[in-house]
Every structure is written in C-alpha cells, then in structure tokens.
C-alpha cells in the first residue's frame, strides 16, 4: 500500500480496525517519511522512534483484542514542543528550557493517550509561541513544505509543516493570536482554534493566558473533528476550562444541505489584502452563495485596532508569565552571576532569545506605573468593543468568512528584522483570540507560485460543530485537500 503517510486518520482508522494495516506499519511509514524529508523541512526538534513503535505495538495489541479506543487508535500525532508529556523534553523552542524534562502530562496529552494515539515527536515553534514564522525558534528554522525557501508560518510552524509533509498524520499546536490558523493556511492544511475554555490549558506552557488555546491540525476537516473530539474535555486542573456539552463532531459534519447564513466583514478586504488571496476568498464566498447559502455583508469596525490591543495584552500577560524563568527551581542558570539578584538578570539574558526579550520589555513597559491606564487598561476596554462587534454581527449570521492571512507564506528572513510588519501579518486571526471565538482555516486555493491560501470560518462561542460543517462543505466540493507538496 503506497503512501500510508498521506492518508487521513479517517481512512487509516478504518484500515486499522479491519486489520488491513497495523499501527506498527503506519508508524514505520511515518518514521521513514520523516527521515526522508526532514533534512528539508526541519519540523521536529526531536523524535523517538523506539518510543513511537512501542506505542504502535500496544495499539496493535489492543485492536487484536477488540479493544480499540476509537478513531485515533494507532494514529501518529505530533505535538508542539509547548505541550507537556511526562518524561519528554519541553523546550518551548527556547534555550532557557533546553534541559527541561517534563515531570507530568498535559491534560490534552493524557486525552491523546487515552484515545490510543501514538505520540510522535516534539515539533518546532517560535520561542514561547512568540512569532508568526517559526524563525524565532532558538534551535532551527522550519521550512514550508511547498517551498523550502519560505517560512511555514507560526508559531506552530512545526505542527503545520509536519502534517503537510506527511511526517505526521495529525498534530496539535497552540493559538494565541493565530498560531494554528496562520501556519495551517500557509502550509495548505486544516487548523482549528477552539472556543476559549473548550480544551484544557493544563500542561500548555503559558504565553498569554487569557488568549492561549490548544487546537488540532490535519489534512482534512473530518480529521480535525476526530482530533478535536479526543482533546476537548472539561478539566478541574484548568479553572478557565468550561463545562459544555460536546457533540459528536464527526457526525455533525454532514450538514451539506443546510442553508447557512454567512457574514463577510468588509474590513477584512481592505488595502493590505494580497490580490491573489483576495480572489481565492471571493471564489470561496461565491461557492457558498451558489450552493444555497445566504451571504450577508457585516461590519467589524474595530478590526484595525485588534493588532495594537493584542500586542499590548499579550505582551503584558507574557511579561508576567515569563517571570517564572528565573534560574532557581528550573530553567537555565547562569554561572557568571555575582549574587542572587544578578542570577535573575544573567540567567534570563542568556536563556531568552531576541523576540522574547522584546516582548518582555514591551509588556513590562505597558504595565509599568504611569503607563498602565494609557495602554493596558485602555486596551482591555477596546477589547470589549472588538468582542461587541462580533456579538452584533452574529445576531444576523451563523458564521463569518474571511481570509486567514492577508498574504501567502513569505520568504525566510523577509520580515525577521521588522517586528511591526510581522505583527501586522496576524490582522485577521487575532480578533478571535481577543473575543474568545472559534475559527478554522481550510485550504481554498493556490496562488500563481503554487503557495496555499486559507479560508477562515469564524463561529459563535462553542459552535465548533457549525464551522467544521461549513469548512467540510467547502472542502468536499474542491480538490485542494488532495494535493500534496513535492518534496
């Protein structure tokens, strides 16, 4: 059977249960694929073949006993190196946690284990998830599998690139301002940021706690539904985790005939939007219009303020969260310090990379005496206005359609010396984190350089089922998901 590594989890789980293939064969195929292409892609910070094959063997034994744990049984799933797995590295792409080995499992990791998944590798990311290109990793630059001279997006660049390249069947990442959806869009895969609180953040290393969410990557909408099902759960270890009825996402995908009312926010089609991206999104909107959906123009007037609001709130929260890396109980400790206070200064200076330092300084500044009201408090008020924009538009529509990113993946190095231009590349994704809303990016075409373009579907709180169904309707009527990068 050829190219097992490019089949979807939905297909593979059928083959596994019928015992036409084994998880051992599948995991071996993914390992071989990884070895063949990883010199070009550099998606993984590390992986452990023996540990993966051992999990695969356990899966095969469960299946043989008729004790399959569900559709993820025996499927290799990659994890962004910011999600704790007991006994594995947890570097967050940072030198300050270079030697850190997690003593516990994140709730999402436990959920994956309970679902029978094969946990596969530690995926590269921007240091502490701060970035939009994965160039801020302290270890390596990950390439976009569609053009290895381009970035894969970020911060979950390794998660997106590995799935696009067939080095993992599925992966999980985290999204604070677009870090799942933007790399999914750039790498031509599907990525979902769930409603804030749907997935436990316990064991997800904190960047900006009021914005961070874990979410799935896959090569089909159905696979995203399967993975979301496994990791969504209420968790008493995360006090922001929310008790809500979780539907059977895979079943509710099949609403092809439903006549959705879909909003198109005019502010998302302004000057900054690349022409070819704009055309692909317009075509996607036309598809829905021609297939029984009603398209309504809506307005989100505070859209442009989302970037400054996000970078004030996110850096403020980050400067507080990252205070824990002091070189005392864990994390890098400098051996040049002259006293205990100096130990903080030097350990942090040696351990953190440039973008992290920049955001700590910015966040500390906006929280400092004399600036708190002008920046942080005001940003929190504008955040309220941004959320109200969405609430108002959702009175009229079921979901919103937008581009995921204003451009396709850019070249490695192109924006790394210009933080502001990098920050502006998140314009269409960050509002959702500020408002806590779910969003999915689904491939909707390619530009003339054969770089993938993503359509973002934004939903009401806890309406993951609806946006999955809308994305699924689009995906199944197009062939984009059948295409893979040539590596």
């Amino acid at each position, binding site marked *: 059977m050829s190219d097992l590594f490019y089949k979807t989890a939905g297909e593979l789980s059928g083959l596994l249960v019928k015992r036409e293939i084994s998880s051992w064969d599948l995991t071996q195929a993914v390992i071989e694929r990884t070895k063949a292409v990883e010199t070009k892609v550099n998606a993984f910070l590390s992986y452990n073949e023996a540990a993966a094959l051992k999990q695969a063997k356990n899966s095969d034994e469960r299946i043989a006993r008729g004790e399959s744990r569900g559709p993820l049984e025996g499927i290799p799933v990659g994890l962004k190196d910011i999600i704790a797995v007991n006994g594995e590295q947890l570097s967050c792409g940072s030198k300050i946690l270079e030697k850190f080995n997690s003593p516990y499992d994140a709730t999402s990791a436990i959920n994956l284990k309970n679902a029978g998944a094969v946990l596969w590798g530690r995926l590269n990311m921007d240091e502490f998830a701060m970035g939009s290109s994965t160039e801020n990793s302290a270890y390596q630059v990950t390439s976009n599998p569609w053009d290895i001279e381009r970035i894969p997006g970020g911060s979950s660049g390794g998660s997106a690139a590995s799935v696009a390249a067939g080095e993992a069947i599925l992966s999980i990442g985290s999204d604070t301002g677009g870090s799942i959806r933007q790399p999914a869009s750039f790498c031509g895969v599907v990525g979902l940021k769930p409603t804030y609180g749907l997935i436990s953040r316990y064991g997800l290393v904190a960047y900006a706690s009021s914005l961070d969410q874990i979410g799935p990557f896959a090569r089909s909408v159905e696979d995203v539904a399967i993975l979301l099902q496994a990791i969504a759960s209420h968790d008493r270890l995360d006090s922001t985790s929310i008790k809500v009825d979780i539907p059977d996402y895979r079943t509710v995908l099949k609403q092809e005939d439903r006549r959705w009312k879909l909003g198109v926010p005019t502010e998302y089609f302004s000057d900054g939007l690349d022409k070819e991206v704009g055309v692909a999104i317009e075509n996607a909107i036309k598809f829905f219009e021609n297939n029984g959906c009603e398209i309504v123009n809506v307005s989100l007037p505070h859209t442009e303020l989302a970037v400054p609001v996000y*970078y004030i709130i996110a850096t403020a929260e980050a400067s507080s969260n990252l205070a824990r890396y002091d070189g005392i109980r864990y994390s890098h400790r400098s051996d040049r310090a002259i006293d205990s206070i100096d130990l903080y200064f030097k350990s942090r200076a040696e351990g953190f990379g440039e973008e992290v330092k920049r955001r*700590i300084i910015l966040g500390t500044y906006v929280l400092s005496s004399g600036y708190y009201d002008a920046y942080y*408090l005001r*940003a929190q008020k*504008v955040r309220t206005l941004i959320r109200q924009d969405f609430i108002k538009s959702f009175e009229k529509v079921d979901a919103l359609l937008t581009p995921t990113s204003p451009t396709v993946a850019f070249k490695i190095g192109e924006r790394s010396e210009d933080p502001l231009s990098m920050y502006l590349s998140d314009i269409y994704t960050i509002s959702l984190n500020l408002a806590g809303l779910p969003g999915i990016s689904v491939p909707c075409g390619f530009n003339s350089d054969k770089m993938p373009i993503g359509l973002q579907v934004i939903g009401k709180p806890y309406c993951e089922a609806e946006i999955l169904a809308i994305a699924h309707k689009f995906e199944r009527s197009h062939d984009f998901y059948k295409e893979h990068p040539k590596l």
Partner: protein
Amino acid sequence: MTNTSSIDIEYVANLARLDLTENEKKKFSAQLEEVLKYFERINEVDVTDVEPMAHAFPVFNVWDEDRAEEGFTVEEALKNAPAKRDDQIVVPKVVE
C-alpha cells in the same frame, strides 16, 4: 498618553530583571518606539463607559473538593533543578 515618551529601556529592563547588551538596548528602543507609536491608535476610539475585559467569558472563582492527592516525589520535583544538594535546591547566598 504621552506622545513624547522615549522608552526608558534601562528602567524597564531593570523591572523585568533582564540584562540587555548595549546593542539590544539601542535596537529595542528604536523598534519599540515604532511599535508604541502604532499603539497610539487605540486612542482613536471613545471608551467612555466601556468596561475593561480581562477574559473572553465571565470567569468566576472555581472551587474544587478538598482532597489529598499524590504529588511529585522529591526526585521528580527536583529533576530539573539547576543545582541541588541533600534533596534541596542550591541557590546563591541570600543573607550575609
């Protein structure tokens, strides 16, 4: 908001307990100046009577049952300590 605010990088770096090189100070000052100028845009909108929002959804205190559970063993708790001795973390001398 102070439009003239040149960010006092040394003061802020001290608050953040972060040593910066001369190069970093220069580079960050210029870049953050540009970013802060961009941040001024949040003044374009009237926020009178708008409630600040710290979280996407109302968050209330969450209580959990008070029950004993297994915690980390000493070995687990100390496995990432940069320096340890006799089941304790070694730190630089704090008192004279």
